[in-house]
């Protein structure tokens, strides 16, 4: 067990600790509401497990900064327009003699614009985003989780109406007719 693997794995261990705490509450506590809380803790630790796996070193949240998105779009349109304008302008001014020169200028301009554009694109790809997929799956799971929790609590209320208690063993005793 090297220090490196401890640093790489401690997140999972914390998640397992939380998971087992929830499991213990479900097993050991006889109050039904307490059991639902235990299930909730277990559930949250599963969310944390997924989110932990989605994290990338030096990554950031998977949201493209608006500035970069706008620049990228602008650069993509800008290069072709600049090139066309330069060619048209030069061709009008020096119709015959400077044809070659104009071509060169236009070429240089276009080259510049292209390298500029690719620089921007490069800058934007250099941002490392964490994996968005676990986030999406857990968003769905959270909402489903609250739905099941609500259902479980409604059942607890109903059990209390019928049995007059929310204690697991007491309910079993009543069922056996003791």
């Amino acid at each position, binding site marked *: 067990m090297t220090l490196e693997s401890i640093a790489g794995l401690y997140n999972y261990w914390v998640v397992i600790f939380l998971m087992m705490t929830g499991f213990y509450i479900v097993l050991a506590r006889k109050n039904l509401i*307490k059991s639902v809380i235990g299930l909730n803790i277990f559930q949250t630790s599963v969310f944390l497990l997924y989110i932990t796996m989605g994290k990338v070193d030096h990554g950031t949240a998977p949201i493209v900064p608006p500035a970069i998105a706008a620049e990228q779009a602008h650069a993509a349109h800008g290069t072709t327009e600049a090139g066309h304008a330069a060619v048209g302008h030069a061709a009008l001014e020096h119709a015959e003699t400077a044809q070659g020169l104009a071509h060169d200028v236009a070429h240089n301009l276009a080259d510049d614009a292209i390298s500029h554009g690719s620089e921007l694109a490069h800058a934007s790809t250099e941002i490392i985003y964490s994996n968005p997929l676990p986030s999406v799956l857990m968003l*769905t799971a959270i909402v489903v989780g609250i739905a099941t929790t609500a259902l479980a609590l409604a059942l*607890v209320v109903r059990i209390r109406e019928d049995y007059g208690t929310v204690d697991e063993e007491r309910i079993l005793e009543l069922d056996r007719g003791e």
Partner: protein
Amino acid sequence: MNLIVFALLALLAITAVAIAKLRELWAVIMFTGIYSFLSASWMMILDAPDVAFTEAAVGAGISTVLMLSTMALTGKAEEIPRKKSLVPLFVVLVTGATLVYGTLDMPHFGSPNAPVQVYPDPSFVERSEADMHGLPNVVTALLASYRGYDTLGETTVVLTAGIAVLLILRRDDEEKDESAQLAGNKTS
């Protein structure tokens, strides 16, 4: 940065143990809210702000309210003294040890070569902007479009759960009589 993470993780663990140890239901529910907020903070650090928002709103907000109202409806549970059993602790320790053994093979935290990052093809981030006409949030794009069927299924589950809750808690007169009779039989 690391100090904040360690403090958060320690607080999470302490809160979980406090929830397991405490008997007073009111305090337990409050601690559950704190636990949800702490896990939302950790999700924020792990680059999942969308999940953190949802967890803070749903886990700490709605679920706490639901539990408090359940407690109000069922009343405080009476303390029934019973001898402590070591079986649950043993089961939990064995399961936990097995799971920890299972993690020894896992890709390390934050590793870019982990299977999670490589499969499926991680081109969502590159494609989503063009596909979604410049929508900056990739999580939203995934949730609503690429994995839209998941969300449809989720909506179905929520609707079903809502209908079930209404049916369970509905009180007709005859049903009430019946349940009162049943309760009378049970307690007598």
